[in-house]
């Protein structure tokens, strides 16, 4: 068993850390507060070939593995949570094309996503299809050489900024998951519009918008993975998406822990730094240990994926554990900073609000536990 990155992976990680230290982290607060999509950062990721790390080179990617993608995602999220979240959501559009796309779809859609020329989004969730993902009501009908969709998606990350959308419609809404079909939409397709942006507890610069389909048309060749295979497309996409959420959560937790650690070594009470008190030391020790566990789970899930082994169970565990660690660690980080931690002068309160996202999106903690239970009890 090898816990070291190989030299190629390390070279990429070193370069990413430099980018994070010099450009992303110094303006992370600004990026969050701006309410604007972090295009400047995404542009940099594109220039550095970081928008398609596990995508084969022939499709515009870097031709590396999901482990490298995961490690890079953690660094990005640790430096700038918003950029990390965009990076994670982008993969949700790439991965189903990698997995199910025809040669033509890969050339037309995967290449510009992987070079970072375009940003992607993945639309599954609806007002009545959240945890009940098989209940997609957006109807899809084949008319001539097009598919026509009607319905609304909600909470779609990157929506509005993305050019390429993977949309799950349903050709037989009364048959639930069995009628679900995946389609590729481009921004601006007839009848396809972007709705309102949600005002969230955190991540104001990360768009989560509605996708509105009113007799929206996409060419027949844009069906992804075949008619009525959309549930499978969605579920397999979410397997990788869970690793993506896990790495985002690890990044948030790591950032909060580092703030708490640094603060504890400076803050003086009772004539000594608070890091000299066991009450604080134990918190830091727990944080560091839990983050390490969460990171290793994410790495393991990615490693299994890279080695062609089943990874759904570990992906669910990684997502569940990392997001709950992020919540605990950010909560404790605020506690270490005390009154200052509760103010907006320090980033830990923001990180705590951000951490909550990861327990909810792409399968709530409860859904992850169901997935895990189904695996271990079957």
């Amino acid at each position: 068993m090898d816990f070291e990155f190989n030299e190629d992976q390390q070279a990429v990680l070193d370069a990413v850390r430099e980018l994070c230290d010099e450009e992303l982290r110094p303006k992370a607060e600004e990026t969050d507060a701006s309410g604007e999509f972090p295009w400047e950062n995404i542009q940099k990721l594109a220039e550095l070939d970081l928008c398609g790390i596990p995508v084969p080179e022939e499709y515009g990617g870097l031709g590396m593995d999901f482990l490298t993608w995961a490690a890079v995602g953690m660094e990005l999220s640790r430096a700038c949570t918003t950029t990390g979240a965009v990076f994670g959501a982008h993969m949700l559009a790439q991965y189903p094309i990698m997995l199910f796309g025809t040669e033509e779809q890969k050339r037309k859609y995967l290449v510009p996503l992987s070079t970072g020329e375009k940003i992607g989004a993945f639309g599954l969730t609806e007002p009545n299809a959240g945890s009940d993902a098989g209940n997609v009501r957006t109807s899809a009908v084949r008319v001539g050489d097009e598919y026509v969709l009607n319905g609304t998606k909600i909470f779609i990350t990157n929506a509005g900024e993305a050019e390429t959308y993977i949309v799950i419609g349903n050709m037989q809404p009364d048959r639930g998951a069995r009628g679900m079909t995946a389609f590729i939409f481009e921004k601006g397709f007839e009848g396809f519009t972007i709705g309102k942006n949600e005002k969230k507890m955190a991540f104001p610069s990360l768009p989560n918008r509605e996708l509105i389909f009113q007799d929206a048309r996409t060419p027949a060749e844009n069906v992804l993975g075949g008619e009525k295979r959309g549930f499978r497309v969605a579920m397999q996409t979410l397997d990788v998406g869970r690793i993506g959420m896990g790495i985002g959560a690890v990044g948030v937790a790591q950032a909060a822990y580092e703030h708490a650690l640094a603060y504890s070594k400076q803050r003086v009470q009772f004539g000594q730094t608070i890091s000299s008190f066991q009450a604080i030391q134990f918190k830091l020790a727990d944080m560091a240990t839990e983050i390490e566990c969460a990171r290793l789970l994410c790495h393991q899930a990615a490693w299994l994926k890279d080695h062609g082994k089943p990874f759904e169970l570990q992906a669910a565990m990684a997502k569940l554990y990392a997001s709950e660690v992020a919540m605990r660690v950010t909560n404790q980080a605020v506690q270490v900073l005390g009154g200052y931690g509760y103010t907006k002068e320090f980033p830990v309160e923001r990180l705590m609000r951000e951490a909550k996202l990861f327990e909810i999106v792409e399968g709530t903690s409860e859904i992850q536990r169901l997935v895990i239970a189904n695996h271990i009890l079957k």
Partner: protein
Amino acid sequence: MLKIVACIKQVPATTNVRIDPETNALIRDGVESQVNPFDENAIEAALQVKEALGGDAYVVALSMGPPQAETILRDAVALGCDDAILLTDAKFRGSDTLATSYTLARAIRKIGDVDLILCGKQAIDGDTAQVGPGIAEHLGIPQITFAIELSVDGKQVTARRMLEDSFEIVECRVPALVTVVKQINEPRRASMKNVLKARHHEIRKWSAADVEAEDDRIGFEGSPTVVWQIFTPPKREGGRVLEGTVEEMVSELAGEILEIRKSLASS
């Protein structure tokens, strides 16, 4: 095709350089290293010249140093340099700026038909700003120091020099050596594809014999510079503001000046 050499140096990755009190040499052990920041600008300038010529140039990164200096050359290849050469030999140890510029000049001769040599204005460890000009002297070619703008048109090099109180525009013909200041450009970052490609690039290593350097002109033997003492200059004390009427201030100032003159004359 224009042949460009960018000279780069590995320096300690800290501005807080420590000096060995015994030898007065820089302590390099246990200190992380990096490429000299001004040399990053030299690489960037070389790459921009190449791009301005539509790619019709060949950029070689050249460094002299211990085997570990290979890292900065690999980074230079990742940034877009076409080739990289490391001058490394135990005989080079102890080289001062004279011996270093001689050695680099020998290497540039060996590379052959070099049109343009780019250097950072100085290294952040030694701060001498002598190696670039030294190379030009050894090669007997024109030099333009402290360039803040640079363009190459055919055989003509034009540079804008940043001086303390003015700018100066200088033209000369190739072959020429130009040292650049930080403000000349914003060094790019290497893309990951290039980083990965550069990992497999062979960094050529040349010894003293390879560049036909004369033994008494390199290393300790070829270095006439003796460092007697290194110290931090005393902090400047703040000036004094004279107060009172103009007459009072002028007479006080004149008195001070006369005092200083007297003390200078007696010392």
